[in-house]
């Protein structure tokens, strides 16, 4: 029984980092229907920039982390303005390919500058000091990730529903032409959406960095986060988080009880099965398209 709860707790902890990536991807998908495969790499660039200023220039933590957020915000804005906006055919496949290309460029640049050997990011909370609740083990970092994931989800949800800019984002997704006619600057909305999404991804990256830091560190969280977002519905923010937690918990339980090797296999199998039953995810509203 204790094992089961422990596994669920670790699953929830790892699911939180997937949830942050999933949130970032759903945010972009909600506004512009683009699947952003470059999500992980935007976070990666910010994390490695933080490593640079922390390790080589000796900035204090309370200066470096906000600077990372600002850097990732501007990186996201820049990518949208420079590349995504210039694409001539905005159909699904083109956008996916463009984001994959961007991802490869950023991965190559980061890998080239910093080399492939694993590094450690100086972090105020070590990844190994932990709380012990009875026999259950949960580390400080995992609690912080959980709190931040849920907190950011609530913040984004409130932002989308109750602020004017959030309403502008929803309007841009529903009908960009009508939004423009109503006075919403659609280009600016898209740019800022990418910026916010990159910022959320940066938070995820900074929380993953203490445990593992190498140029390929964001691939797995991004894929699992994407999978969780697809499971929960690409158009719903709570859905992304719920899906990510489900993926994390199921993966961990499967890994604990059956076999650790096929963990990710079962995650994808579950997603395909759920998608067959409910094609646009669990919590999403299925948008009916005109034939």
């Amino acid at each position, binding site marked *: 029984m204790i094992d089961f709860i422990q596994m669920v707790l670790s699953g929830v902890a790892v699911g939180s980092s997937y949830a942050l990536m999933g949130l970032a991807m759903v945010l972009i998908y909600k506004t512009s229907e683009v699947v952003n495969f470059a999500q992980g790499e935007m976070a990666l660039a910010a994390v490695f920039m933080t490593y640079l200023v922390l390790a080589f220039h000796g900035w204090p933590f309370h200066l470096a982390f906000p600077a990372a957020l600002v850097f990732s915000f501007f990186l996201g804005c820049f990518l949208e303005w420079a590349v995504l906006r210039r694409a001539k055919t905005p159909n*699904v496949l083109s956008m996916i390919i463009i984001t994959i290309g961007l991802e*490869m460029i950023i991965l190559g640049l980061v890998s080239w500058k910093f080399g492939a050997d694993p590094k450690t990011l100086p972090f105020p909370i070590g990844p190994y000091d932990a709380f012990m609740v009875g026999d259950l083990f949960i580390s400080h970092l995992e609690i912080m990730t959980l709190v931040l994931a849920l907190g950011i989800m609530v913040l984004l949800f409130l932002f989308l529903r109750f602020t004017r800019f959030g309403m502008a984002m929803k309007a841009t997704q529903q009908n960009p032409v009508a939004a423009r006619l109503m006075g919403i600057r659609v280009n600016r909305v898209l740019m800022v959406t990418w910026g916010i999404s990159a910022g959320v991804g940066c938070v995820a990256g900074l929380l993953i960095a203490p445990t593992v830091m190498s140029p390929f560190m964001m691939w797995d969280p991004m894929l699992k986060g994407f999978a969780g977002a697809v499971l929960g519905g690409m158009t719903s923010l709570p859905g992304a988080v719920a899906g990510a937690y489900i993926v994390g918990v199921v993966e961990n339980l499967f890994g604990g009880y059956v076999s650790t090797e096929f963990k990710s296999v079962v995650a994808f199998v579950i997603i395909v099965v759920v998608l067959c039953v409910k094609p646009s995810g669990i919590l999403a509203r299925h948008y009916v398209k005109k034939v």
Partner: protein
Amino acid sequence: MAYGNFYQAALPHTINQPTSPGLPKATMDRKRSYYEDIALFDSKAKLFWFIALLAFLVAYPHIVPSNSYIYMANLMAINIIVVLGLNLLVGFTGQISLGHAGFFCVGAYATVTLMIHAGLPFIAALPLASLITALLGFLLGLPALRLEGPYLSIATLGFGISITKVIGKMEFFGGRQGLHTPELTIGGWHLNTDIDFYYLAVGLTVLLTIAARNIVKTRVGRAFIAIREADIAAQTTGVNLTYYKTLAFAVSAFYTGLAGGLFAFVLRFVEPEMFTLLMSILFLAMVVVGGLGSIMGSITGAVLITWLDLQLRHILTIPYIGDWLRALSQSWFSITGVSNIQYIVLGTIVVLIMVFEPLGLYGLWIRTKKYWKTWPF
């Protein structure tokens, strides 16, 4: 009277002969009958150039200076086959697939396993392995009937990753060490050298290209294109979506499996770590750069990206660029990571092509042709 002319025009041998004897049969891209549309060669000029190309391919191993060119040609042939299959799925039917490395892996392992454990000769193992891969493609196509866009991409992505992991973990397939491929013999012909393999690979590539072109020009290809443009509308005009979508997946998997079977013999060794997500992305990049929805595009994309990939592996040895790159690495970047220049260059090419010319190299070709055909207007 009007009906008589209509039926007359539909039968090729009764078309009114042009008055001037020097006029070509069909001007520009105009096709006057169904048979002209599906004909393999539009004009004598195209037939001549095709025969010239075949002659060049036959003579190629004897006119190149070193063996590495033949190795490159082998890889190009295999990638052309994969990209033809992937283009049939992504370019013509509009289904996104990020998991073709999985089919590649299954094709390679199936061929080698059938030859080792079932004792089949290569000439039987390769088609059988391709059919097994096609069956797997059909099974993947079944959930794909309900999915589209990002949902389909995650399903195929998951499939690609999972298949490689599952095969890699099973001891029957050699586990992590992989399998060594047995000797390649067809009838009494022992294929030991790269040149022998070159003839096999290029011969198969030419056959498969003609097959792909025929698929695309006839009823099945038109059904695929209809599904890509508007699948519900296609269903209302009688295109059986279930049949044609799963057929697209199966045919695409067949091509990729066949290429995988050939790939196993290029390196004489298969191991699960060779078939990564990056390989799937590379295939997709080849399709996109070459041109979605065109046979010639598939070939050019595969040739270009394979050549680039091989060149970038030893970029430091190229005269001017290598030195500049080394200097740049030492001052700004780390010298050990120069191999990552592959990612950067490939990513840049993909982004530039998709932003400026979404139809890829084939689109560039068509635009150039149109410009000169309608010059000076």
